C-alpha cells in the first residue's frame, strides 16, 4: 500500500531518526484507522494522503518511539501551544493540570502491561498536531467540568421538598407554557442540523458570531443572517403550531409567549427570539 524499503522519507522524519519503514508503518496505520471497513479505493487513498499531515505524523511517531530529538522538538514547539490553550480554557490555571496530565500521557507515563503506551499513538495525522493537542485538551477539560457538575450538590430550592405546593398555579401558565415549550422544541428538532448547530452554538455554548463562523466555515455576517432566518422560521412554526394544533387566538399566542418568557423554570424564549446580532446582555460582545 505504501512503498517501503527506506526509499520514502521526509526531511523531518530523517531529523527525528525515523526510518522509512517506521514512517510507512505510521502512514499505513493512519489509512487503516481512517478506512476500518477495508482498503480504500485508489481515489479515496489519494484524497486522504493529500490531506495527511505527514511531518506532524512523523514527529508524533518518533515521539511515541521515544526518540530524544523528536521529544526535544515537541517540548520546544508544542508544549507552549498546549499551555496557551490551557490558559485560554481556564485563565485561573485550572486547565494547566489537565495539560500536564496530558503531557504525561503523551510521554507514556502510564505503562500498560509493562509497555509504555504513548497517547501519540492516537494521532493519525488527519489534522495538525497542534490542533489535535488543543482538541484533546478541550475534550478532557470539558469532561472534567461535566463530571464536576454531576457530583456537585443541587441548590436547596432544586432538591424538591421545600418547593412542593408553593408554586403559584396560574391556570393559563399550566396550559400555555408547556404548549409553547413543546412547540419550540419540535420546531428546533425539525431544523436542518447546520441550523441547529448555529442556534445551539449561539444560545447554549454562548459563542460569538465569529467563533461560530470558525466552526461552520462561514463569515460572521453570514452566521448572523442564518441565525436571524432560523429565529424567524422557529417563530413562524411555533405560532402556526399554537394556532392550528393548540387552537389559540393571536392574543392567546401573545399571552403564551409572555408567560413562557416570565417562567423562571421554562424555556428561555427571550434568547431564542431576540435578534442575535443585537443581543448585548451577555458579558462580552458576541457580535465580534
Amino acid at each position, binding site marked *: 500500500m505504501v512503498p517501503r524499503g527506506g526509499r520514502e522519507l*521526509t526531511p523531518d522524519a530523517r531529523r527525528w531518526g525515523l526510518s522509512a519503514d517506521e514512517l510507512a508503518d505510521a502512514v499505513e496505520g493512519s489509512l487503516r484507522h481512517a478506512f476500518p471497513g477495508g482498503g480504500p479505493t485508489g481515489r479515496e487513498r489519494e484524497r486522504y494522503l493529500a490531506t495527511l499531515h505527514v511531518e506532524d505524523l512523523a514527529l508524533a511517531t518518533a515521539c511515541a518511539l521515544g526518540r530524544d530529538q523528536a521529544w526535544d522538538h515537541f517540548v520546544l514547539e508544542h508544549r507552549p501551544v498546549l499551555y496557551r490553550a490551557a490558559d485560554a480554557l481556564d485563565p485561573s490555571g485550572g486547565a494547566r493540570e489537565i495539560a500536564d496530565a496530558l503531557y504525561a500521557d503523551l510521554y507514556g507515563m502510564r505503562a500498560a502491561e509493562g509497555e509504555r503506551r504513548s497517547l501519540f499513538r492516537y494521532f493519525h495525522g488527519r489534522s495538525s498536531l497542534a490542533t489535535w493537542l488543543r482538541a484533546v485538551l478541550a475534550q478532557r477539560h470539558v469532561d472534567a467540568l461535566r463530571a464536576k457538575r454531576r457530583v456537585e450538590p443541587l441548590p436547596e430550592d432544586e432538591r424538591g421538598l421545600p418547593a*412542593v405546593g408553593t408554586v403559584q398555579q396560574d391556570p393559563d401558565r399550566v396550559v400555555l407554557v408547556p404548549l409553547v415549550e413543546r412547540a419550540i422544541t419540535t420546531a428546533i428538532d425539525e431544523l436542518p442540523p447546520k441550523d441547529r448547530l448555529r442556534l445551539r452554538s449561539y444560545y447554549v455554548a454562548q459563542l460569538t458570531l465569529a467563533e461560530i463562523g470558525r466552526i461552520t466555515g462561514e463569515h460572521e455576517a453570514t452566521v448572523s443572517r442564518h441565525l436571524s432566518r432560523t429565529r424567524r422560521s422557529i417563530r413562524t412554526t411555533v405560532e402556526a403550531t399554537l394556532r392550528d394544533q393548540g387552537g389559540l387566538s393571536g392574543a392567546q399566542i401573545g399571552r403564551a409567549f409572555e408567560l413562557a418568557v416570565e417562567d423562571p423554570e421554562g424555556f428561555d424564549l427571550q434568547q431564542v427570539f431576540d435578534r442575535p446580532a443585537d443581543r448585548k446582555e451577555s458579558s462580552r460582545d458576541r457580535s465580534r
Partner: protein
Amino acid sequence: MHKDDPFDRLLERTSRADREGPHESCLDAETLAAWADGSLTAHERALAETHAADCERCLTVLASIARTSPPPVTAQRPSWLSVRWLVPLTTAAVAIAAWMVVQGPPLDRQVQRSEAPAVDAVKPSAPGSDAERDAGAANRVEALQKKADAPARVNPKEKEQEESRRADASGSRKQTAASDKLAAATRRPVETPPAAASPSASTLSRLELKDERVTPQTRAFAQAPNVIASPDPNVRWRVTARLVERSTDGGRTWQAQSTGTDIDLLSGASPSPIVCWIVGRGGLVLLSTDGATWRRVDFPDRTVDLAGVAATSALEATVTTASGRSYRTSDAGRTWTLQETPAAPF
C-alpha cells in the same frame, strides 16, 4: 406532573445529563481536530455537524477549540506589515525602486553586491551530499503521497462560487486561514515583506504610484533586501528584485542563484535550511528543495501578484495574493486550494 413536580424536574435534568455524557457516537479528538483544520470530507463534516448539533458535550468541546484557536496569522504580524498594507506598500516600493532605477546606477549593481561569483553559486551540491539526499527525500514523499491533480485544483467555476461567497464578507476578509500550520510557520521568521522590485518597462506600465503612501519608512523598506530566514541561523536567502541569493554563514557572504525567471520576486519562506518557497508577480511560485536549484511551481492564476507565502515543508505552503486571497498546497504545488478566508477554521 411534568415540570411542576420538583422530583420530576430533577429526574428530567439527571436523565438529560446522562444522555449527554460521552458515548460511542461522540466525535473523537481526531475528528474534532480535523474539523477544525478543515480536513474532513464533505460527508464526514455533515455527519459531524449532525452529531454536534444535538450533543452538548461535543458542542462544548467544539466551542472550547474555537475559543482557544490562535489569532489569525495577519494579527501576529507587526501592524505596518499587515495584509491591508501589503498592496499599497508593495506598489510604493516598486515605484520607488523604479524611480531609483531610472535615476540611479544600472540594474546589475545588485548582482555586484554578491561576494561570491554567480557561476559558483548555481553549481549543484556534490553528489551524495545531505542536501541532495534531503531533496530526493522530499521528492520521494511526493511519490509516497501519490496525489491526484484533479480534486483540489481550482477551476473557474469554483473560483466564481468563491467570489460570490466572499461578497458578503466585504471588508473584513483580511484574515488569512489561521490553521495551526500557519501559526507554526509564523513562529519562525519565514514570512517576509515584499521586496523592492526592479521593474522592466512592462512592469512600469502596470505601476500605480500613490505618492501619499511613500513615507520615509516606506522608502527605507523598499531599498532593503528581502531576507528570508531559515530555521538554521546560518542559512538564509535574500531576494532583491529578480535576484535570489543564499548565505550559509549567517549573512556574511552571499551566493547568487539562478531561478530561470525574469519576473519580480516579492516574498519568500524557508521552513528548512534546504527548502525555500519564493513568490512573485504574475502568479510566480518558485520552490527549492535542495537549497541550490529552483523550479517554477504551477499556480492556477498567472494574472495575480503573490505578495506573501508561509510554508511548513517542501510540500505544504500557503500563498497570499496581493488582494488578500490565500491558496494552499500540500503537494509541493501540484494542486492548490482556495482557502476559506472569511472565517478562518479555528
